[in-house]
């Protein structure tokens, strides 16, 4: 059965309805920034508060092999990250009268509406929303109560959505009228993607997404994702834990609205992770959200503001029913100036409030130069 599936997958990848010469496009985005955070050791602090410089770069190598086949790849690097292929995907377009499209390889999961705002030139601010960036206390490996308690507020566990959510797998997507749909099957889930740990999770994650665009400028989407998220079978609490039986479930509702010089984005995500503890399984829940607005006040100049937060559910840890991590609220505001249509300068201030722990307050100021080419 598996062999048959592999043959079908390979046939799809090799199939080209209109063979021809590929048109190859090399483009990219780069950013250089100066930033300084409060001198704390909170998860949002940078370089212990020392003024720092940083950079990041994404190179996009795209090939249009034919009218119906394209290949995408993204190479990403930064001052803290080695060069790596963030995305390597093949898209087969318009396959049937239903206009079905297929994507296979390593791609971003169809969950949420971050889109190209993940890149500095398109990001209205400096950071990503908390749900994409902030690490909770819950790791994607089994752990003990004591360890989990010590992790609270330290930002060493999973993100609610794993940054760009790049995962290995396949996806079917398309449109019908005002409806867009996508279904993906991947190794890993939205919080524990195969971007970090390729093919180390037993079982497949699934995502279903539906979005409607009732009018130009307004898109409302919803997604549901489920799948195993624990990466190995090592368990200090029980030798009989089967990671594939612990299924993360995530639901998303996202809205995007724009008109004139105003653009608004919002997203709310609810996730639950059943987690094996020595005292029995516990359900770790979290709700995360962000609302972001951008307004162009003059040609070249815009203002942007984002508020995002994470609200953790209660579990019994250390015999006390308490939130399993400290709630976080973050405000980020700034302005951007387009030196050229491809050159953007941003000045951003971020204020983070962590409700508990050693570092309840944090902040960051960043000046960033972002270019696309």
């Amino acid at each position: 059965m598996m062999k048959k599936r592999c043959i079908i997958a390979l046939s799809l990848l090799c199939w080209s309805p209109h063979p021809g010469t590929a048109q190859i496009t090399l483009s990219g985005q780069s950013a250089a920034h100066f930033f300084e955070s409060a001198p704390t050791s909170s998860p949002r602090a940078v370089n212990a508060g020392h003024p720092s410089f940083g950079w990041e770069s994404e190179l996009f190598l795209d090939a249009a092999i034919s009218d119906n086949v394209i290949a995408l790849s993204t190479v990403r690097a930064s001052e803290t990250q080695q060069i790596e292929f963030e995305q390597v995907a093949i898209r087969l377009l318009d396959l049937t009268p239903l206009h079905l499209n297929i994507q296979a390889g390593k791609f971003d999961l169809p969950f949420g509406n971050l889109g190209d705002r993940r890149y500095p030139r398109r990001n209205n601010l400096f950071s990503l929303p908390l749900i994409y960036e902030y690490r909770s206390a819950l790791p994607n490996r089994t752990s003990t109560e004591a360890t989990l308690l010590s992790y609270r507020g330290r930002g060493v566990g999973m993100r609610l959505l794993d940054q760009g959510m790049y995962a290995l797998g396949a996806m079917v997507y398309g449109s019908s009228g005002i409806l867009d749909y996508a279904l993906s099957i991947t190794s890993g889930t939205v919080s524990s993607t195969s971007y970090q740990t390729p093919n180390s999770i037993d079982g497949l994650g699934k995502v279903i997404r539906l979005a409607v665009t009732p009018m130009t400028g307004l898109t409302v989407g919803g997604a549901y994702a489920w799948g195993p998220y624990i990466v190995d079978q090592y368990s200090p609490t029980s030798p009989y834990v089967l990671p594939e039986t612990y299924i993360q479930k995530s639901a998303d509702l996202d809205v995007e609205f724009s008109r004139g010089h105003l653009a608004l984005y919002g997203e709310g995500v609810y996730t639950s992770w059943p987690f094996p503890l020595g005292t029995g399984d516990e359900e770790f829940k979290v709700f995360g959200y962000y609302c972001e607005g951008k307004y162009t006040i003059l040609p070249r100049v815009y203002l942007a503001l984002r508020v995002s937060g994470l609200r953790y559910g209660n579990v019994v840890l250390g015999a006390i029913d308490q939130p399993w991590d400290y709630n976080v609220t973050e405000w980020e505001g700034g302005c951007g100036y387009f030196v050229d249509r491809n050159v953007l300068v941003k000045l951003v201030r971020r204020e983070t409030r962590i409700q508990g722990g050693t570092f309840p307050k944090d902040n960051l100021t960043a000046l960033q130069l972002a270019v696309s080419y």
Partner: protein
Amino acid sequence: MKTRRSTPLIFAFLSLCVLVLWCPEHQTAIPQTMPNSDVRGRITITRAPEPEGLSRAVIDRYNLHLHRDSATATIAPKLPEFRLSERAVVYLESDLLNHGKHSPPEKHPVLDQRNLQFHPQVLPILVGTTVDFPNRDNLYHNVFSYSQAKEFDLGRYPKDDSRSVQFNKPGLVRVYCDIHAHMNATIIVLQHPYFATPNDDGTYVIHQVPEGRYSIILWIDRDRVERRSIEVRAGETTIMDFTF
């Protein structure tokens, strides 16, 4: 008393008027339009240039959930048929022509946003002209320019809605869409009306050109591709062909 004081002033004013009217330099600075002084010609294209941004496949990676026609939104529209009427302009250049006073047209020229392209891709206008920017696509565009001759940002507006911009400064205005990076157009803002958009067969006519020596410019897409000298004589049609 009042009459006596104002008499020398009136005399001086009248003298100045006479001097200005008789000044030979002034006579050349505002050329008289003569009938039948047309400049005509044909543009022959031997190699059709590809429009910028379409010479490569433009792949939008993150529009899976945003556009209706996913296939066409993923790869930009195929190269449109090369149409001179949309991508070429012929105009005259001379300091002499810049001193005349010309009224901008009452009917606004149009720069369409259609099939993820601007139409035409190059638009010549007289300074002071107002251009309409209607959106014909079933999705948003955000037309803007950061050119020195005119900075504007029209924001996002839906299909069949339109915005207008008046161009009061001569020069080049590069127009883009903030949402679709491959879309671009050029507006050439001229101080005189001596320009022509060719027909698709390459023929063009610049009407009622004043007598004089000028440069004649052939502009295709985003660049001036040829400049030649031309002499226009009153009452005679001047022929100027281009091969590009």
